């Protein structure tokens, strides 16, 4: 291995990519998109407020008035909200409660007499005609079973539905208290709920977890995920481009295929790290908090990132990137066009996506069976082990085994990719078949007693 030559290749790959407009546009646009996305979400959440005309079919005959009073009380500032939650609400809650107050409920009492099905049919038409947003049926029989039926074209407004549910519960609670002859004030006391506040315990101490740590871990998780895709794909494109350009033969006359491959993978990986560095600088130094601040309630959501998270991130990024880049190299080498390689590019894609498929399970139980298995399996280890380390302490041996397996797989894949690459990059014309590629891997040059040589087009 001549590292001077590898370095020359690294340098070329790096400098040429860093110089492109595409790199800078991508680097600068992605954070903006990210911020814009958060902004849009906040804006949409706010927009989710507004008027809600809801028809109430009160078959009990006495719940409508207290319900209307209660919902007004709930949506009036400085009412129950502050009394129920005396502790200073954190950002997430504040923004949630803010927009809850933005809903203006318009309850309409509808006659409950007559056939219920007829009434419901009428109301259904009104809902469809958008005269009302929804209708609720308060039926004694159903209430006894602890159920109230809510009908609307949109049944995914959990926050709004939650508010209505809370109001109805409150009304029922008061009713029950009154029925027992207890003072009504007691309802307010009874309504108080405890708030389970998580504190994350680490070797360094204890810190209140406001969800920001998890947000940071997930941001990094998806960052790594998309980089494996983007830069793995770039490696693939790079290999095919060299073949297409026919430059590869000139280079192979000076550089060994393995050196060229390593140089390419290192160079493109460095481009990825540079992109991260730019983002980190932007985020820590200047504009990000300011920009986020423009979205008012977003500012405190910018997570404070612990050093260990960054350490693990870099470690698993390097291992994972190298592994996937090797796979992409092996896939690219035999083919002459992106299209031909595309079908095989599905293989690493599925591997990368499988990490995303299991991450909710890992989030739920970072030390559970699924989490442990997928954090040890080399193809999912980079993403899943990284996520685990950021969620809860992982036993040292698991981290070591995970990295050892990952490293071994990476070396094996790099070797395998190198063999395919060495022969594939000089093959033009006809698309090779799988058995031919297998022969390339087994092919030993210079041995007199070798099996049949690779097929040229």
């Amino acid at each position, binding site marked *: 291995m*001549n590292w*001077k*030559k590898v370095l*020359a*290749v690294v*340098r*070329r790959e790096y*400098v*040429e990519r860093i110089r*492109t407009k595409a790199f800078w546009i991508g680097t600068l646009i992605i954070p903006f998109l990210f911020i814009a996305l958060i902004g849009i979400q906040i804006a949409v959440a706010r927009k989710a407020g507004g008027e809600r005309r809801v028809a109430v079919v009160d078959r009990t005959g006495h719940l409508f008035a207290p319900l209307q009073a209660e919902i007004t009380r709930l949506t009036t500032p400085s009412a129950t909200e502050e009394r129920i939650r005396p502790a200073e609400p954190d950002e997430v809650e504040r923004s949630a409660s803010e927009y809850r107050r933005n809903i203006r409920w318009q309850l309409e009492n509808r006659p409950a007499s007559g056939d219920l099905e007829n009434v419901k049919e009428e109301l259904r038409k009104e809902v469809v005609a958008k005269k009302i947003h929804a209708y609720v049926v308060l039926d004694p029989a159903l209430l006894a079973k602890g159920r109230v039926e809510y009908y609307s074209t949109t049944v995914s407004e959990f926050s709004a539905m939650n508010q209505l549910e809370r109001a109805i519960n409150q009304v029922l609670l008061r009713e029950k208290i009154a029925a027992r002859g207890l003072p009504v004030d007691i309802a307010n006391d009874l309504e108080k709920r405890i708030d389970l506040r998580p504190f994350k315990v680490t070797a360094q101490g204890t810190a209140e977890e406001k969800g920001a740590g998890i947000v940071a871990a997930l941001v990094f998780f998806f960052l790594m995920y998309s980089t494996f895709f983007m830069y793995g794909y770039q490696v693939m494109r790079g290999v095919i*481009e*060299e073949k*297409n*350009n*026919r*430059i*590869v*033969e*000139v*280079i*192979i*006359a*000076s*550089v060994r295929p393995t050196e060229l491959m390593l140089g390419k993978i290192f160079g493109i990986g460095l481009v990825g790290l540079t992109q991260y560095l730019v983002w980190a600088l932007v985020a820590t130094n200047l504009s990000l908090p300011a920009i986020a601040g423009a979205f008012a309630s977003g500012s405190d959501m910018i997570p404070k990132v612990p050093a260990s998270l960054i350490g693990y991130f870099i470690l698993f990024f390097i291992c994972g990137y190298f592994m996937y880049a090797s796979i992409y190299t092996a896939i690219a080498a035999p083919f002459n066009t992106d299209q031909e390689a595309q079908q095989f590019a599905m293989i690493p894609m599925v591997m990368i996506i499988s990490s995303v498929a299991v991450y909710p399970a890992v989030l739920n139980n970072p030390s559970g069976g699924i989490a442990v298995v997928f954090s040890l399996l080399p193809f999912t280890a980079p993403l899943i082990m990284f996520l685990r380390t950021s969620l809860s302490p992982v036993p040292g041996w698991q981290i070591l085994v995970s990295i050892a397996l990952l490293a071994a797989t990476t070396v094996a894949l790099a070797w395998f990719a190198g063999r395919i690459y060495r022969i594939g990059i*000089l093959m*033009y014309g006809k698309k090779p078949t799988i058995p031919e590629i297998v022969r390339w891997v087994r092919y030993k*040059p*210079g041995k*007199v007693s*070798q099996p*049949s*040589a*690779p*097929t*040229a087009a």
Partner: protein
Amino acid sequence: MTDYPIEIDRVSKVFGKFRAVDDLSFQVPRGTIFGLLGPNGAGKTTTIRMVMNITAPDSGEIRVLGTPMQRATQNRIGYLPEERGLYRKMKVLDHLYFLAAIKEVDRETARNRIGEWLDRMELRPWLHKKVDELSKGMQQKVQFIATIVHDPDILILDEVFSGLDPINTALIKEYLLDFRKRGKTIVFSTHVLEQAEKLCDEICLLARSKKILEGNLKELKRSHAAGQLRMSIAGSAPDLATLAGVRSVTPVNGAFVVSLESGTDRRDFLRRALELCEITAFSDREPELEEIYLAAVQNAGIETRQIE
């Protein structure tokens, strides 16, 4: 230093069922321009790739500068493949620096050599242009500079003149002759025989994966044309064919090519010919390379129609 910088010893290469090179042996003497000739598909490029250690031979041995190809040797060779290409998005100067760097030429030396050649080839205005803004001919020039930027001891050029205009062809020819004068060696592959004829000292002729002729071009020509004379005659043409010892007389461009039977003394023939007519010019006939080539192909039992 060995007298034969490149030695090819009973080398064969098979691709699947296709035998690209069949039991090929030749040696390239130092300080010569060696022409590897033959029609398309004869095995020239495969042979060159094996010399460059890009593909390995199935059997046989190749020695470059006395040993099988080594890393250090690689840096002493300048290689211009037939399938050439450049990174399209790179700037000319950066590209040349990169190709110099992978030959381990330090930047200072590279800068000087590149500068000199950019001037010679009038490429300086294009220094900071991207490769894909250059015409094909200009890209060829850039490629040639890249091939010689490390001042190699051996040049291996696969169809070096294809796509070049006459001015740059002359420039490169001049360089090649100067390169040889410095005791360096050039292997030069082409299917254009006129180019080979003007440049090569030694040739190896391939057809259908096999060597069919090899040797010093001058000697080959001499032996091929042994007993052939070229004569120009004033006045009407006499019947030279009636003279003793003459095999045939062929009119060529206003002159005659006289083929003598072996054992015929040339002075004898000349004396008798002078009695018949006035001879204005008389010389050994120099055969065209093409003639030698076709004869060799015919001798090898391959019909020219099949290979061209």
